């Protein structure tokens, strides 16, 4: 998987998040402050611009640029968190021109770590971690099992989607939704939903 592959991923993320902007904002309206879709759309619109301004040469460069751009443009909770995720992905992949599924899975694990280090959320706290963590685990086991990237991505996306849906019955312990206490139950976490979309954008 080279820089073209990862560029395609990011372009697909941009497309998917823009389509789902209002959905994500609606999810955030229910248990947050009605800006998650707008935040990510603004961030990834800047990413598109940044990529066309200085097209990166390697997957690591690309993902670092994405991470930095998100940190510089999104704000809110999701900006630093997704920013760190992508920045860490870029850092882990280094300057290799080609990346294996193993490399990606390992990078994703460190990316997840950077998210939990920064946000201090554990699985079950009703955050994006509830989608990212199962996706990271699935990628790792798929890599261990020697699956083709296409299949691994499919499984990771499914795991993320499942993790996102599984936030519905949870009571939030982190982020804005935690202010609602028991009233956060019954709603899907917007960050988990966007994380699932980001994973669903991974096509071989």
């Amino acid at each position, binding site marked *: 998987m080279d820089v073209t592959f990862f560029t395609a991923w990011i372009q697909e993320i941009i497309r998917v998040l823009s389509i789902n902007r209002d959905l994500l904002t609606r999810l955030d309206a229910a248990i*947050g*402050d009605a*800006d998650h879709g707008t935040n990510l759309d603004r961030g990834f619109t800047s990413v598109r611009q940044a990529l066309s301004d200085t097209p990166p040469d390697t997957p690591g460069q690309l993902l670092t640029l994405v991470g930095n751009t998100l940190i510089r443009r999104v*704000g809110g909770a999701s900006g*630093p968190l997704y920013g760190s995720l992508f920045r860490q992905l870029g850092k882990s992949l280094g300057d290799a021109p080609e990346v294996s599924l193993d490399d990606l899975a390992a990078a994703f694990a460190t990316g997840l770590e950077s998210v939990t280090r*920064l946000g201090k959320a554990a699985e079950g706290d009703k955050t994006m971690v509830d989608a990212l963590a199962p996706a990271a685990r699935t990628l790792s086991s798929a890599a261990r099992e020697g699956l083709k990237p296409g299949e691994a991505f499919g499984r990771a996306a499914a795991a993320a989607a499942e993790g996102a849906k599984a936030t519905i019955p949870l009571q939030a312990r*982190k*982020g804005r939704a935690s*202010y609602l206490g028991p*009233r956060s139950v019954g709603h899907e976490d917007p960050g988990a939903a966007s994380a699932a979309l980001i994973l669903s954008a991974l096509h071989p």
Partner: protein
Amino acid sequence: MKKLINDAESVVADALTGLAAAHPALRVDVEARVVWRADAPRVGKVALVSGGGSGHEPLHAGFVGYGMLDAACPGEIFTSPVPDQVVAATERVDGGAGVLHVIKNYTGDVMNFELAAELCAQQGMAVASVLVDDDVAVQDSLYTAGRRGTGATLFVEKIAGAVAEAGAPLAEATRVAGAVVARSRSFGIALTSCAVPAAGKPTFDLPETEVELGIGIHGEPGRTRAPLASARDLAAVAMDAVHGDLPLAGDLLVMVNGMGGTPLIELYIAFAEVEAYIRGKGARVARSLVGNYVTSLDMQGFSVTVCQLDDELTELWDAPVQTPSLRWGR
């Protein structure tokens, strides 16, 4: 949802353009989203920087000026500023004596200010921070995001601003800011939802006969819903929550704050009830503010913030301040 705006995308930029036009004593970088005192940096003076999502006006930009903030960095609507903004604001006002970041306790604000503080430290600036978390509606716990920062932010900015203006060192400004946080509590009640411009409609639906108790300042629903009641009863709900957390005693600084869509006549009615409640507990309103100071766009509702004064804090509160939205003594 009706808004007096040009475009949901340009709300913050357009408002900053207006702010700049209205207040010659401020400098505004609309692109970089930074508002600062025209006379900054003041060499040898500790600088105060705050910021947060927009939609809470006049907080924070309306409190930039003599005796209060040196700079503010307004994020998008209800979205904390990005680190670049905080760094740019800090750079612009750092007079060599260090910079105090006043941060409302929200996950996003905390993380973005933390990232900014790292960048500032790398650039050799001395940055300290104070975290405001006064909202008693939220349970405080190690395992959660903790209490929200709401109305007490104004108290911190005013009082720490006076400390800084008096020439005190960074550690002292930080200490006093922390003392204000420790002595302040808030509780908010919404009569209606606000509408985020980009979302295009009210954040939540609230029947004509109900209110939300324990709301924050981002249009989020509260802890519970309750029947609409009299100003007296609603004030009692808010004050019971405050009093239950930090018993009312002695001289108090009290703010009855509108959420943006509630007219002043109603806020004075609420203040009358709050003042009577406090008197009933044997405490005293020594200083007060009634008005729209820490808002949630066009939400109807109010919050009460109480701070236990002592002689030092009273004197600092009374010290001159000259900002667009808080001014006395000069």
